[in-house]
Structures are given as structure tokens and as C-alpha cells.
């Protein structure tokens, strides 16, 4: 399953991802990581059976963990089929069909949220 791990400012200087993995022996496959000196946000894949263990460990060290079980959704009323989302998606979720209509292959979505900021029409949402 895909999970999102947020590392708030007060714990950003601690190696909490590594600590949690060592402590629980659960391996996280990190797919997206945006970390700087003030804040961190990661998206990782973890086995369903191991999720509770790693969640507990991460949360005990100050991280916020959320399950990403809802891929991106598109509001077809708002969408104007411009295709702005196509080039920012790291997983190639978006493409045009032969009629220049936007196609969304949401199975590929890792819920990184890049496309949400890109969409000028606010047509893309996560977690709904």
C-alpha cells in the first residue's frame, strides 16, 4: 500500500525514517521524497501486513502517517482538457486520446500531488 509520511519541522533533524526501519525491520520503498531543512514529505510503498508496525514507529518519533488509498480524481466539469497536468506527472498518469481528450490512468498514481498545483482549473483532487 502507498503511504504518505510527513516530517514536521521539530523532528526534521532526526533520522526518524532510518530509525523506524531499523527498529521494526520493515522496509519502505520511498517513491517520492521532498525534504529540506524545515519540512519533509515522503510517499512510500509498504506491505499491507507491515503497515501498522511502521506507522506506530514513525508516529512515536513525531511523523504524521496517512494511507493513500484514493488515487487522484478529476472533476470532468471543471477540466477543460488542456493537458497542463501531463508534463508534471512523474508516473505518466495523464495522456491525450486521439480526440485531444484527457485520459487519466489512475492506477499509476502515487498521489504526489504535483498535478494538483499545476491544474489551473482546480479540477484535480486527492483523498476524495
Amino acid at each position, binding site marked *: 500500500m502507498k503511504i504518505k509520511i510527513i516530517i514536521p519541522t521539530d523532528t526534521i533533524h532526526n533520522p526518524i525514517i532510518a530509525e523506524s526501519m531499523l527498529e521494526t525491520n520493515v522496509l519502505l520503498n520511498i517513491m517520492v521524497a521532498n525534504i529540506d531543512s524545515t519540512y519533509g514529505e515522503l510517499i512510500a510503498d509498504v506491505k499491507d501486513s507491515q503497515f501498522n508496525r511502521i506507522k506506530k514507529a514513525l508516529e512515536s518519533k513525531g511523523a504524521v502517517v496517512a494511507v493513500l488509498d484514493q488515487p487522484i480524481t478529476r472533476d470532468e466539469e471543471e477540466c477543460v482538457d*488542456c493537458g497542463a497536468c501531463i*508534463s508534471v506527472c512523474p508516473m505518466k498518469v495523464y495522456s491525450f486520446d486521439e480526440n485531444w481528450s484527457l485520459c487519466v490512468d489512475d492506477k499509476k498514481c502515487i498521489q504526489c500531488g504535483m498535478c494538483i498545483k499545476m491544474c489551473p482549473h482546480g479540477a484535480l483532487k486527492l483523498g476524495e
Partner: protein
Amino acid sequence: MVEKSVQEINTKIEDGSVNVVTAEEMVGIVEELGAEGAAKEVDVVTTGTFGAMCSSGLMLNLGHSEPPIKIQKIWFNDVEAYSGVAAVDAYLGAAQNSDVRGIQYGGAHVIEDLLRGKEINVHATSYGTDCYPRKVLDTSITLEDLNEAFLLNPRNAYQKYAAATNSSKRILHTYMGELLPKFGNVTYSGAGVLSPLSNDPEYQTIGIGTRIFMGGAQGYVIGNGTQHSPNNGFGTLMLRGNLKDMSPDYVRAASFTGYGATLYMGIGIPIPILNEKLAASTAVRDSDLVTEILDYGAGSRDKPLIREANYAELRSGSVEIQGKEVPTSSMSSFKNARKIANELKEWVNNGKFFLSMPVEGLPRDRKVKPMKQTQAVPLVKDVMSDFIVTIKKDQTVRDAAKKIWENSFNHVAVISDSGELVGLVTAWDISKAVAENRFDSVETIMTKKVLSCAPNEPVDLAARRLDRNGVSAMPVVDTQTRVLGIITSDNISKLFARRY
């Protein structure tokens, strides 16, 4: 030689014998029949475009209140409009952001909400006169309540537009969308083969008075747009249309992250095929239309050209930059552009839309000028302190403390034996060292990763860097990193104190 007049074409529209095709269909027709054959066969070519057109806005009249007011300031759903025109006229710009909701909601959103029949809150203020005694007004209106509601768009339907990319190391939030670091993507705008002005690049049939498809209604070209620059193929149009007749399918509010509100407009222009020259120009293909890919990483007006690309390349999904395949995104909708060209075609075919010849052409020999700026941009060297206290890296913390005390200066630049900048020590660093009982060389307590700037940098760029990194001072260094002076937030506040 084929010669037709708009009157002849309008007669054909009336009797239902007119032959209309879209600019996309025209490509194949001219390929097959040649320009002369196509000019005989085809009477009208329809074009279409649907994209962000920030230079748009609504001219409206509210009607008079009781008691009447001469509005000086006015807001629609907290978005300010310009009301320095008579008493109850106002111009609401599409790109004006809400005072309350910020860039998520702007003039464009008010326009779309009006079009969708929603109620809009109005707040207006004035100073009161004998003829207009009222000073404050609060009401709510819908589109129906307005006497006039015309979109008056100063710059729409760019002939083509430069594409955008980003060489810098951070994501840029621009009116061309999110530009990923290190040439991570390219964004572009424009309908290519369907672009109205690109299908009549000599402006033979498009000018003041040309009737067009505007936002789903019939509107007019009222002149060249602002920043009209035909010499390099960047012509623009000024348009007018009645919002009350438009459709929200073709007038859509948008907001670009980190940039603000804008309006997506759907525009279509019919081009009468009066001669074979027009037949040839309406056969333009994506691959004939070349634009530039510019680097937005610089943050300055003159963006470096990365390469040229035609619309066929841009629309293919990727272009090559420095040996790498870079994905492209369109910011305008080709699907909707095609829908507009087809709808306009239906209108003409069904006798609902008649063509008009312009009463005056658009300027064909012009290039847009940059702004005349009378105030020179202040540079770092104009405001920096050229006195800076320096210390060698092997001197002691006590030496540094003494220097700060003697010179009443908060920052001491640490230099190597050959005079190059190697670090910075502040009064705070010294307090910390004293508190920890460390009195050895300044090298052990100094900040080693020092931000610095060049004497010829504009002050605002230096100020932005101080702000982004949360520091109060930067040494100014020459190209050999020898210390010339220091710029502090004090220097910058003094600059502003002088100015106002």
C-alpha cells in the same frame, strides 16, 4: 484568379449554399486542390482557440441607487474593480485577485459566477456630493440586474506564444504553470493549426469590426490588442462581446499556483476565402508555426532563448533540450479550440452567423517596446557599507570580540592570508562561544557557508536572497572573492527611508 467578396459569401450563407470548413480541414483541401482550387471550393474557414487570456475584463453598469452614489471604490465578492468612470460604471479585470481569498479567486471567477447566474456581493464607497450624496453601498446582484455587461478584452488571441522552461534548481510557479527544475518540462500555449491570427497572418480579413465567436456569443474585434507585435509574429486582438449572451463552456475562470487568477476565453474567427492567397494562408500547419522556448529561470524580462520549436513538436508530447527528451504540456485546450471552430462552422452553415469585413485593418508593421524606466535600479555597490571589519581566520575569539566592540559593528568578515572571504562571525556567534567557554581561533566558531553578493547586483535581488535565507547581512565580494564591503538589512532600510 479567384476573387470573392464578403457580400457574395453572405448571400451564400443566406441561401444555404455556403461551403465552410475548419482550419484543420483546410490543410488537406489545399493539399489536394491547390490554393486556387481550394479558393473556388471553400467560402469560409473557421478557426478557434481556448486558453488563458489574463488581459480580459468586464465593463458593467449597475444602474443608479437611491439615494444615488458616485462610486469611487468598488468590490465584487471582495475583488476590486476600477470605478473612476462616471458614477455606476465599473471595469472588473480578470486578473485582479480577491482582497480576502487571495489568488484562489479573482475577477475571472466573478465573471464566471455572474455567467452561471450566481449572486455577487457588491460593496462600494464614495465621498458624497450634492448630486450623489450616498457614501457607502452594499447590495448583491446577478448578471440580469446589470444594465450592460460587456467583456472588453484588451489583449486576446495571441497569434502564437513563446513556450516556457526552467533551467534553475527550484520549481517556478508562473503564468505558464509549474516549471520543473533543470529543464524538467516545457509548457506552451496556442492552438497552432487552428490559431485565428496565424491563419490570416497578413490581417487581410481581421480588423476593426470583424464579427467573431467570443465566449459562445457573437462578438467583435475592436482593434489590435495591447502589445500587438506583428513584426515578429506576435499579433494580438482587442475584443468586445456581450457577457449576457455568452456560455460558461467558453468563459472559464482559472488560477495559477503562485501567480493568480486568469480567464480562459474561447475565441473563434471566420476567415472569408476571398482569394487564393487566403486559401494558402489558411492551410497553415502546426509544423509551419515556429515559436521560441524561453528560460524562465532568470527572473528578468529578457528571458534567454533555449531553442526554437514548432507547434507540431510541442504537441507531440516532448521536445529535446540539451540531449534530453523533455515532456511538454499545453496550457490551452486544443479539444475546445476544435469545438469552437466546429461550432462556428455550424453557425455559418445554418445561417446564424454572417461575416463582416473590417472597417479598418490592424497595424502590420510594429514591434512591442520595453518600458521606459526613469529611475535607475539601485545596485548593491550604491548602498553597501564599504567599511567592513575583517579578521584573519587564525586570530582568537577574543580578538574578534575586541574588533566588534571597537568598531561597533555586528559582523566581522573572516579572511584568508591572501584576503579571500572564508567565513563570517557575528556578535551572536561570539556570545555563543563565550557561553560555551570556547576562546580558540575564530575559524572554529565562524559561519563557513557565507552568502555573498556582487557589487553590480540589483539591490532587490540581494534583498530577496537575505530574506529567503533568513540572514541580516552579506559580504560583498569581487570575482576573486576578496571582500569589498557588506550589505546589511540596515543599508536596505536606509535606501527605502531615503526614497519615501
